[in-house]
């Protein structure tokens, strides 16, 4: 088996920092090499988890949209049933999963705004569920390699 892409990128970063950076004479050039190494590390982390993150998130956002459709009935924003009716990603390619994610999260914005305007405990509960997912979405995206 080949070394995994994250491992290769980590190796590239290590070489940039230890072998190339010390030989660059200008501050701007040194900054460029440092940035390239940092990007390698972050892309390596994202590469391994991206598909899993998107599959997980798309499922959770679909559940929230369905809950919003049930709560709001006819006053649900049209983007919500449209997103729910759209087919799931055609493959596990990150680009396909990301397109599905964009559609679902755009509908989530409309749903969140509608829920905020809706009185009642059920709406407040859904509002908190949406906020909890938004918080969790940032944990899913957090990169331990970020500077």
């Amino acid at each position, binding site marked *: 088996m080949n070394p995994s892409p994250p491992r290769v990128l980590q190796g590239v970063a290590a070489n940039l920092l230890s072998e190339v950076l010390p030989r660059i004479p*200008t*501050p*701007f050039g*040194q*900054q*460029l090499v440092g*940035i*390239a190494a*940092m*990007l390698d590390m*972050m*892309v390596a982390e*994202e590469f391994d988890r991206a598909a899993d993150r998107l599959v997980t998130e798309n499922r959770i956002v679909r559940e929230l949209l369905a809950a919003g459709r049930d709560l709001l009935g006819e006053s649900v924003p049209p983007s919500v049933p449209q997103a729910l009716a759209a087919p799931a990603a055609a493959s596990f390619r990150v680009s396909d999963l*990301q397109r599905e*994610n*964009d559609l679902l*999260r*755009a509908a*989530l*914005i409309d749903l*969140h*705004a509608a829920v*905020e305007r809706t009185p009642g405990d059920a709406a407040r509960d859904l509002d908190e569920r949406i*906020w909890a997912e*938004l*918080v969790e*979405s*940032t944990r899913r*995206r*957090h*990169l331990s390699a*970020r*500077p």
Partner: protein
Amino acid sequence: MEEALARYLAPRLEAADVRVTNLLRIPGGASRETWMFDAEWTDPVGGRQSAPFVLRKDPPASLLETDREAEYAFYSAFWGTDVPVPRMRWLENDPSVLGGPFFIMDRILGCESATARIIAPPYTAVQPKIAENMYRILAAIATFDWRGTGIERVTHVPTPETAWQHELDHWERILDTEAMEPQPIMKAAIRWLRANPPPPAQRISVVHGDYRVGNFLYREDGGIYGIVDWEMAHLGDPLEDLAWSFNQSWHWAKDGRPGGIVDRETAIAHWERYSGLRADPAALYWWEVFSHVKCQGIWVTGARSFAEGRTNELILPLVAYSLINAQDQYLLRTMGRLP
């Protein structure tokens, strides 16, 4: 580029023998390329002259698309005032000279600007003095009488009642146009900002627009000798700059202190004392929430520029990967949704 610069400077320095040396691109400058160089020439009476300069040049694409004439006007308006700025020398809008419009200013020597240096010795010892100077100068910007200066010709003049709305409309439009993914956290914050507007601005002031540690030149004596990067300067509520300086994106020491050099209570006390203005906590909070929206607008603009292939500046994907999600987290923290 040295020869093109020398040709450009010759008639402006009234010299036929201009020589450009030590041309170096300066790290940072994600919105405009920043270069330093020295020029040597013979003046009309035969004396040898030399001077250090800084050149700010428009890149093909950047974190921001801003008006260089406005930036030049703000710099020029503050020259010779209590707000230290480098002296502006020439503004050139013709892209054929250097491959993009640019302006040239005098270089202030013997200063540091790096955010990594200010949080380490020997600067840690003078952090209180740097911080006091930072907020004293911000107070001078806030109380500057801009009427009758070149600033009036290059920028919109909002009313105290509409300053917040003008800025929020501007940055929401940028977020909507530039973001490559939906921004549910930022959009929730924008709905809150619109539903809870701040009180009218105490006055319409110059707002630097990016006032923070990293955008001024300092020395080991604790003095600040130049405020730079005025590309987002405009007129508006002076609390905008104060709140911006507190944004977590500039907590360089990661210890909760703005800029990594001062606690916010001390910063507010300095600013209030020197400006005579009040930092109303509710209004300041509104501008702090807004500052996250504006930051995100900047980050997503750079991300799109790189993604669409308009530039290969590596700082832009670095900013995207390291700051877009972090900015969402900083906003959630400000709004009490994250510990």
